[in-house]
């Protein structure tokens, strides 16, 4: 939405990075964001630099011309991508998923949707543990899961079926155990705790919301200033 270099860099430099420093996650945030951005950045640079039409040709590789306009477009796209990945990274590094979902539930999210979201978060480590147990059991019966990549891939296939099937067989008992604890009751459930929400957080959220609405309105009405 905010084009040029100045807008995204201002968001990163004045909003995201100071917040990350305060939260003590700046180093991890930059590393994670670079890693997240890297695969897309490579394709963006290749596509933009060599396929963007322009008058200033910097150099040529075969039939492809690298243009200054392409480099400029790739640069603008990269800072935008980095702004997006750092903001997502900051959210991920500073927000405990369970607290986030439960707070959403307090604010009106359906308890069933909240359960699905939380159960999914828990299911991944549980499935990894189950897979490790099944892999050990299969290895005890002679399955080779080590060695070359090909041997490892061959060893993974016999594990997939048992891992999925054993998960499915537990589903019915798990759902019955939830029914016994009144999970099927219509209406909202009582939550035991509330995440502290300071006045400062409220002000920042309101300001961000206003900025978002303002940016959308000015973009739609064509009054958004052109940034360098």
């Amino acid at each position, binding site marked *: 939405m905010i084009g040029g270099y100045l807008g995204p860099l201002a968001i990163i430099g004045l909003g995201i990075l100071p917040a990350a420093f305060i939260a003590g996650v700046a180093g991890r945030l930059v590393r994670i964001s670079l890693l997240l951005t890297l695969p897309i950045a490579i394709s963006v640079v290749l596509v933009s630099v060599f396929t963007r039409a322009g008058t200033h040709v910097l150099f040529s590789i075969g039939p492809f011309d690298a243009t200054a306009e392409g480099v400029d477009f790739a640069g603008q796209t990269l800072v935008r991508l980095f702004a997006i990945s750092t903001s997502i990274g900051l959210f991920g590094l500073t927000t405990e998923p369970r607290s986030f979902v439960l707070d959403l539930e307090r604010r009106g999210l359906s308890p069933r949707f909240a*359960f699905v979201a*939380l159960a999914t978060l828990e299911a991944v480590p549980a499935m990894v543990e189950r897979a490790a147990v099944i892999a050990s059991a299969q290895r005890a019966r002679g399955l080779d899961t080590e060695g070359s990549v090909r041997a490892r891939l061959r060893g993974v296939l016999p594990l997939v079926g048992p891992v999925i099937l054993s998960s499915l067989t*537990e589903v019915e008992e*798990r759902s*019955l155990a939830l*029914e*016994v*604890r009144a999970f099927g009751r219509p209406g909202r*459930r009582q939550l*035991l705790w509330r995440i502290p929400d300071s006045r400062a957080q409220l002000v920042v959220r309101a300001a961000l919301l206003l900025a978002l609405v303002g940016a959308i309105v000015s973009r739609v009405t064509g009054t958004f200033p052109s940034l360098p």
Partner: protein
Amino acid sequence: MLELRGVSYRYAGYAAEVLHDIDLRLDDGEIVGLVGPNEAGKSTLCLVASGLAPASIGGSLSGSLTLDGVPGAGLATYQLAERVVVGFQNPNTQRSGIAATVFEEIALGPMNLGLPVAETVDRTREAISRLKLDHLVLRDPQRLSGGQAQLVGIASLLAMRPRHIILDEPTAQLDPAGTRLVGEALRVLAGAGTSLLIAEHKTDLLDGLCTRIIAIDGGRIVLDGPTADVFDDSRLTAIGVEPPARARLGRLLAQHRIDAAVLAGAVADSAR
């Protein structure tokens, strides 16, 4: 009082009935053991007595379930849960998978009932205290031993404050230490006035805990009576249930015409 009258049950998609003409009465505060060989219908009877079959899992039921004078057929599963609850054998499936601490795990049922926070906390604390789980309240429910997880599962049921608790082989997947933990918890429950129906292969656990034993085979009740009578009945062994050590020893002594009192005296003398 929980009562099944003339109950037969068939799972959805199956032609044959799994339970046939079951009459079972569980009085308030009564502790009843349910024994039988594999495939006898113990788990199905637990589901039917808790109302989950057919209310939740479907199937076809004839006869009636009555809970404290209220017909079970007219109750939704969450309404059933306030009267009768059932615990299963696998501690992992008892866990909700959404609670960060044991306290929240145990509180989940009252939270689902929409009870006020004070009552939810009160019920949770009471369940924790009755099963002596205070040292676990802040632990991650996923990081418990099998026995501890099963205790947390039972505490979660207790927090619903039901009149009747049904447990389907609560120690089946536990090691001896876990079995001992659950056995102690069941003794606590037995002394607290909640009626219990416990399906179990480990007859030693039921002996001394239950006042009455029901033996089931082929979906029919074949024995129903005071614990000592049923465990001493030779028909129990005939259907493939191993009586507890006390009953087996008594039978051996009787076979060899040894007076138990004389033997006890001899043992005491040799110990001296």
